[in-house]
């Protein structure tokens, strides 16, 4: 105790870091030495199970994951722009936008997707929605994306220098013209990094569509992996799916970092 208290705070902090590394390494060694490696390999990295998933996991599952993500992102972002502009404009529509945003940001995405997947077909006749209950679930994903991106885009709009608005208005441009031609193009540039982040989140959240009960052709990655897992009674499909998610998300995350550096006005 007396040795510890005689140390400077920075030294004590360094000692703490070293201690935590030592403990972590110990735990890792213990696991490595005592784990049942043949069983683990067979359970989680089973080559036969993994092989049986191809090519379906690419041609159907990954394709669907990307498709659902892109559709939700494009439509959701457009919805987000509309909601952000309405919120900033105020009035009754502004209040509607605020209510919409707060509702779908405040409720778990899973619940929203669930509600859309089951509620929309019930309300509008199941066969009329393209993609059936998965299509309806995607509507839920769109709505959630719209709510989240609305707040990002609103912040982007407010980050545009107020002089831009004044310059445009002094030229006789209306509020709408100013928003469309001057403010939004600049705001959308500002929000590229956070929106790319949102895209990564959305890619992962597309897994929530498993709740919509996909058919053979509408499965996305997580549903596909889950179904393979039950078929083979083996969790290897989860590892394969995780790897595929990472193949897409890691470059995107890297891109966000690059964009943030490049668009940083302080540089």
């Amino acid at each position, binding site marked *: 105790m007396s040795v510890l208290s005689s140390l400077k705070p920075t030294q004590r902090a360094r000692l703490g870091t070293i201690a935590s590394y030592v403990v972590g390494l110990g735990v890792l060694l213990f696991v490595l030495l005592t784990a049942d490696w043949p069983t683990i390999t067979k359970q989680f990295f089973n080559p036969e199970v993994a092989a049986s998933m191809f090519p379906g996991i690419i041609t159907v599952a990954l394709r669907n994951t990307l498709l659902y993500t892109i559709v939700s992102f494009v439509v959701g972002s457009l919805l987000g722009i509309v909601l952000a502009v309405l919120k900033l404009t105020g009035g009754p529509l502004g209040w509607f936008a605020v209510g919409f945003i707060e509702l779908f940001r405040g409720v778990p995405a899973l619940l929203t997707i669930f509600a859309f997947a089951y509620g929309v077909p019930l309300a509008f006749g199941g066969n009329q929605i393209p993609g059936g209950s998965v299509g309806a679930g995607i509507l839920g994903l769109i709505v959630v994306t719209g709510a989240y991106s609305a707040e990002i885009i609103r912040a982007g709009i407010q980050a545009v220098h107020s*002089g831009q608005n*004044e*310059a445009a208005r*002094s*030229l006789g*441009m209306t509020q709408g013209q100013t928003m469309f*031609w001057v403010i939004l193009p*600049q705001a959308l540039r500002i929000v590229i990094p956070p929106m790319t982040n949102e895209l990564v989140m959305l890619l992962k959240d597309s897994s929530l569509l498993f709740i919509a009960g996909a058919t053979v052709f509408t499965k996305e990655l997580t549903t596909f992996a889950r179904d393979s897992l039950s078929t083979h009674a083996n969790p290897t499909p989860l590892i394969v799916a995780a790897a595929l998610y990472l193949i897409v998300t890691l470059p995107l995350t890297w891109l966000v970092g690059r964009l943030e550096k490049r668009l940083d006005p302080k540089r």
Partner: protein
Amino acid sequence: MSDLVPTVDSNEPPIRIKDLHKSFGDNEVLKGIDLTVAEGEVVCVIGPSGSGKSTLLRCVNMLEKPTSGSIKLLGAEMTDPDVEVDQVRTHVGMVFQSFNLFPNMTAIGNCIIAQRQVLKRSKAEAIEIAKKNLELVGLGDRMSYHPAKLSGGQQQRVAIARALSMDPKIMLFDEPTAALDPELVGDVLAVMRDLAEAGMTMMVVTHEMMFARDVSDRTIFMDGGVIVEEGPSAELITAPKEERTQVFLKRVLDPTHIEDSELGQTEPD
């Protein structure tokens, strides 16, 4: 140059301000301004920082909403809710201290956008007018540059060309050279001088006393939200009558005066 300035076919003066008041919360910034600017007249507004010069200029084209009083531009009562403010603004160009060019557009793009969207001019016509005005401000060779690639003086001249491309009848300037390096001020002032000589109706907030004296017809000295003194520019700047005007002018025209008084205050006794 003369084809720049369309004639105002109204009997009203371009700018007529009556008993203008403006408050921000409890802070009354303009305390009853009366001012008329005649067609082709160039009026400079001078005064210490915080005296309300920018607020006055911004009230003129309703970027700031007056608390009370009347502002008539080209015969249109701007405070009347039935008046199409956007419509009137197309005739009133404004140039800002911080340029406020649209950074996502080129120099010529800046000069085209409002012509197309507001005046609904054809693309060819808008480009032709934009080119003419960019050449007028000496930037014929910088048309396809983005603002970030231009010097401050060049940016401000693009901003002037952008405003002129709308064929305004009035031009408002809010300290157009205050953000510029000293060696770039001259180019911008030269453009403004040309404009004044071509007969443009202008209201210019400035700290450039030589410009005010030599170019403007009339100068207004503001302090504390009121017009303290006004008169023919040469007279007001060389021989001010009011003591507040004298003190202000002495300070801005003779920088050593500030240093002396500041030194005097900080000297221990």
